[in-house]
């Protein structure tokens, strides 16, 4: 048996969570460093995964591990990564150290003079972050539906505490009001996702019932089900397949989030601290879109095709609706949240366009959106922590006093509006092209989203960064070294992936093609054949 790399990648942050939680109350700094070290170790492991992953190898999954878990119900502890999984694991492992660094002071006790043996918010904060990381990583690696489900749902617990327990301190509210809004956001997050998970649970059970009925033994193994379906041993009745698909899709749509089940995201992102908001939108939500590709499409290709028109429309609504609402927001973090909804619309649109470009773009978009939103949100968080307000109207002329902050904010914003040359452009354009080649009208309508994106980003930048210097920001310090260390690598990545995304697409592409072949869809062919000779004009 080979080294269980995938398990270890998830186990390291889990161990980190325990280690961080065990740090004595008084030694907050030690807790922070523990968390950072463990998250970096995870990053190293994710790097090893990437290095050992062979994009051209045959077979859907690599680095697989398989052990019996609950044999009575055919549950196996099965892990394995395809190109998409390994890249998203890497993204998660990459972002968490930045999240830890950015949240360095977010969970410091308000009054340092209240020493308590029991109350250890700092330790808890970082431990929960690592816990989320561990669960997200294993969700990306699970190839057993049951294992995936367990961690997909378990993720909610640490997230709930992160949102509800460590809110944003900004705003002119009393501590009680803030706590009430925080708790509202956390409960909303939990309820939405639990509702989604419940429906999914029903579908998971249904899947088991169908396999038990037809294969003789129930199984949750993705590979086995896909193989059985391929060889004709397993056949879903149309209605069953659609019902199961909807069950899975609903959970992922809530997580993603797709209009109209999106309203938990602005609350959660608004109330959580900026690093936690990054964790939500850049990492946790990706599990939803990832799972659409891995489970919805591969398990239920027929139903996926059947549902495509509706989902495309919903995705379009998400794109435009999210963007329009972002324009209308007065709160910086909520604005970014709505922008994320718009971007998730693009990702889902790309997935269900069922073209190589669309899905390739969508998977790349997951990575790029993770990085760009992380950059934007973290800079916004730094900004908010300086002034103590989330309202756009409370800022103005920041670029005069904190030019580096403003500059990084602008670059992150430009990435959000998909400026060519920055990473998200490539993916967004691929999604649009992929959609357009199958659904021209949808592609054209989605393009309106890029105009609206420019609107909300530039309005935000203009109102906060330019104009006469607001009295309250006059003494605002520029980015500190720690903060620059968070933002600069992200921006460098955005630039690099914008110019040279090939290292990522190279890994993603075979996985996307595999998915496409599972769904039995091929790209539409161009109307005019152009020979190679003609290319050389």
């Amino acid at each position: 048996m080979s080294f269980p790399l995938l398990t270890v990648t998830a186990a390291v942050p889990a161990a980190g969570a325990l280690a961080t939680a065990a740090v004595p109350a008084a030694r907050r700094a030690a807790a922070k460093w523990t968390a950072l070290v463990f998250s970096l170790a995870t990053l190293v492991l994710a790097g090893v995964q990437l290095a050992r992953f062979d994009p051209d190898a045959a077979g859907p999954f690599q680095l697989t591990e398989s052990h019996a878990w609950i044999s009575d119900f055919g549950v196996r502890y099965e892990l394995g990564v395809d190109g998409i999984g390994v890249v998203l694991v890497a993204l998660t492992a990459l972002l968490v150290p930045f999240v830890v660094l950015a949240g360095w002071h977010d969970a410091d006790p308000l009054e340092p003079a209240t020493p308590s043996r029991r109350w250890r918010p700092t330790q808890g904060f970082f431990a929960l972050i690592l816990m989320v990381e561990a669960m997200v990583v294993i969700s990306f690696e699970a190839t057993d539906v049951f294992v995936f489900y367990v961690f997909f749902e378990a993720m909610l617990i640490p997230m709930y505490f992160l949102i509800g327990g460590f809110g944003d301190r900004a705003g002119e509210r009393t501590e009680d009001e803030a706590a009430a809004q925080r708790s509202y956001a956390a409960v909303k997050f939990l309820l939405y996702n639990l509702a989604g998970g419940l429906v999914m649970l029903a579908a998971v059970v249904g899947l088991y019932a169908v396999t038990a009925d037809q294969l003789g033994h129930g199984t949750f193994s993705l590979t086995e089900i896909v193989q059985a379906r391929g060889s004709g041993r397993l056949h879903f009745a149309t209605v069953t397949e659609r019902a199961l698909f909807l069950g899975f899709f609903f959970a992922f749509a809530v997580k993603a989030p797709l209009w109209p089940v999106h309203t938990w995201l602005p609350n959660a992102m608004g109330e959580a601290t900026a690093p936690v908001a990054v964790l939500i939108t850049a990492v946790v939500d990706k599990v939803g879109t990832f799972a659409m590709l891995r489970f919805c499409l591969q398990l239920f290709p027929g139903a996926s095709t059947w549902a495509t028109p509706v989902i495309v429309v919903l995705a379009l609504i998400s794109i435009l609706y999210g963007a329009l609402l972002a324009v209308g927001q007065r709160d910086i973090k909520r604005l970014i949240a709505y922008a994320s909804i718009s971007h998730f619309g693009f990702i889902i649109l790309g997935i269900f366009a069922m073209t190589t470009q669309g899905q390739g773009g969508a998977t790349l978009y997951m990575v790029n959106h993770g990085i760009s939103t992380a950059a934007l949100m973290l800079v916004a968080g730094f900004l908010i922590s300086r002034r103590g307000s989330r309202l756009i109207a409370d800022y103005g002329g920041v670029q005069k006093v904190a030019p580096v902050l403003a500059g990084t904010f602008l670059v992150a914003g430009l990435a959000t509006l998909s400026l060519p040359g920055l990473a998200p452009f490539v993916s967004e354009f691929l999604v649009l092209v992929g959609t357009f080649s199958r659904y021209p009208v949808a592609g054209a309508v989605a393009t309106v989203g890029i105009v609206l994106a420019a609107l909300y980003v530039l309005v935000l930048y203009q109102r906060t960064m330019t104009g006469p210097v607001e009295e309250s920001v006059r003494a605002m310090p520029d980015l500190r070294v720690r903060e620059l260390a968070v933002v600069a690598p992200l921006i460098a990545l955005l630039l690099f992936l914008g110019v040279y995304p090939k290292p990522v697409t190279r890994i993603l592409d075979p996985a996307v093609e595999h998915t496409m072949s599972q769904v039995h869809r091929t790209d539409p062919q161009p109307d005019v054949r152009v020979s190679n000779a003609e290319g050389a004009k």
Partner: protein
Amino acid sequence: MENLIGLLVLVPLAGAGALLCGGRRLDRGGPWLGTLAAAVSFALGVVLFADMLGKGGEERTLDVTVFQWVPVGSFRADVGFHLDQLSMTFVLLITGVGSLIHLYSIGYMAHDERRRRFFGYLNLFLAAMLLLVLADNYLLLYVGWEGVGLASYLLIGFWQHKPSAATAAKKAFLVNRVGDMGMSIAIMLMFTTFGTFAFGPVLTAADRAGEGRLTAIALLLLLAACGKSAQVPLQSWLGDAMEGPTPVSALIHAATMVTAGVYLVTRSGAVFEGAPDAQTAVVTVGAVTLLFGAIVGCAKDDIKKALAGSTMSQIGYMILAAGLGPVGYVFAIMHLVTHGFFKAGLFLGAGSVMHGMNDEVDMRRYGGLRKYMPVTFVTFGLGYLAIIGFPGLSGFFSKDKIIEAAFAKGGTEGWILGGAALLGAAITAYYMTRVMIMTFFGEERWRPAPSPDEPSAEPAAGDRAGGMPHPHESPRTMTIPMIVLALGSVFAGGLFSVNDAFLKWLEPVTGHEEGNSPLGALTVTAATMAVLVLGVALAWAQYGRRPVPATAPPGSALTRAARRDLLQDDFNHVVLVRGGEHLTRSLVYLDHKLVDGVVNGTAASVGGLSGRMRRLQNGYVRSYAVSMFGGAAVLIAATLLMRAV
């Protein structure tokens, strides 16, 4: 040679990177570093040009693929360059004028504490613009296209502390984004039609695609061109863009970036030629804009905005020419180049005037400046003569050909287009004469200090504010570029026309057909001269003979409308801004009340239901006992039933 093309883009890009990330260490040397980068790329351009001249007509094209950019399935976008005579022309114009304006900016921005960044942005612009004209596929062109948009955004809003500048920058970017939407849909359509969007395959295979498809692509490209080149209906941003520092207006909003639309139409000639309807749209846009811009230019008192109107109008000429097909491509590009010289010169002249006048931009507060700034006066004057098409100067050669080509379109269309072009020439003569007279002739209206309640000035650039203006000539770094550009305005057109040199140079790329004008070349020239004289005379009668009032008279309805950019902004405001605001506001409300409301309502009704259910839990043991007892009864019943079944 291949590597040089890459360097051409990389050098200014590296300059931009160094200047933007370099920190305060580069504050002192930054301007010179930026200028050096521009100059180096100009030198590279010249080397490439020389190399190109050394080759035969058909071998002049140079294609380089640097690396695969986005390879996903059948979708292949490469970072590759395509250098032919057309792009070479642009390269020389961009780097040449660019270098001059860098040099000029050293003087102009000398007192601005953020000048390092200014030069960084300028270098960024150069890189993006070069990428735009050198790209060998539409997607890479799009990158450059948005890149120049970004640079334009940053430079218009360079004085960010002024809300007007920030707003203007945002507006420019947004309007351009609308155009970009057209561009990206066009690329998508190309991909679905041809399976590729590289220039070569698309343009060669264009004639095999259906006309409807081509028309769609062409119209979308036109939309993109309208955005970038400030053509009706996306012209509204250009006037506001004058909030940027004057060198920016000269380089980006006069000489280079705004002409990208012309480049796009010319480059995509094969597509447009396959879609006559789209060509009609192009010439219509061109004709309408050339009149629109000219009329706006007549009414503006702000010298830069008047020039901006003029730019719009001149680009209208170019678009018109480009829309005419092979008849007009060469002249469109020729006018583009000559316009690059004289309009940049005019803007630099305006900058020089403002530099000497405490950043006053209102021409009604100028007057009689020829005595104080002789160099500016002479170079501005030469630019003026060139733009109105004074015989022998650059503008004459290029504009005349366009008018001729417009008439050559034939039929009613030809007459309308030619008439519009002629009328435009007359108005051009009128408003440029107006600018000239109001600025350099007449009485000195700046003597009484400007009343403080009309602060229409650019208060920015450092400490040069307040007090009565002391008109003075600008430093040498500013005058030298002006002189060079003036020389260009005078001789470029002539040089190009000697032996039809320019035509022969470009013909292999764009192709050329001689139009047969119903009027004949001489008639057209005569007519042009006539309207020119008319326009100048009218302006002289109105502004030269009578003193110019220091505050603007109310004017006719047309004047008032023209002052407000022919109500375009008002339309935008009412329809788009207000409508959009209402839309977003109601959506925010709906999101809260409806979407969230449904969810919260569900939660509330569940809560209400459980409130009712809770009453069952009344705490009385006996009630619980009843339910237990009843439950046991039900169980027994169930058991019995199961046995019975």
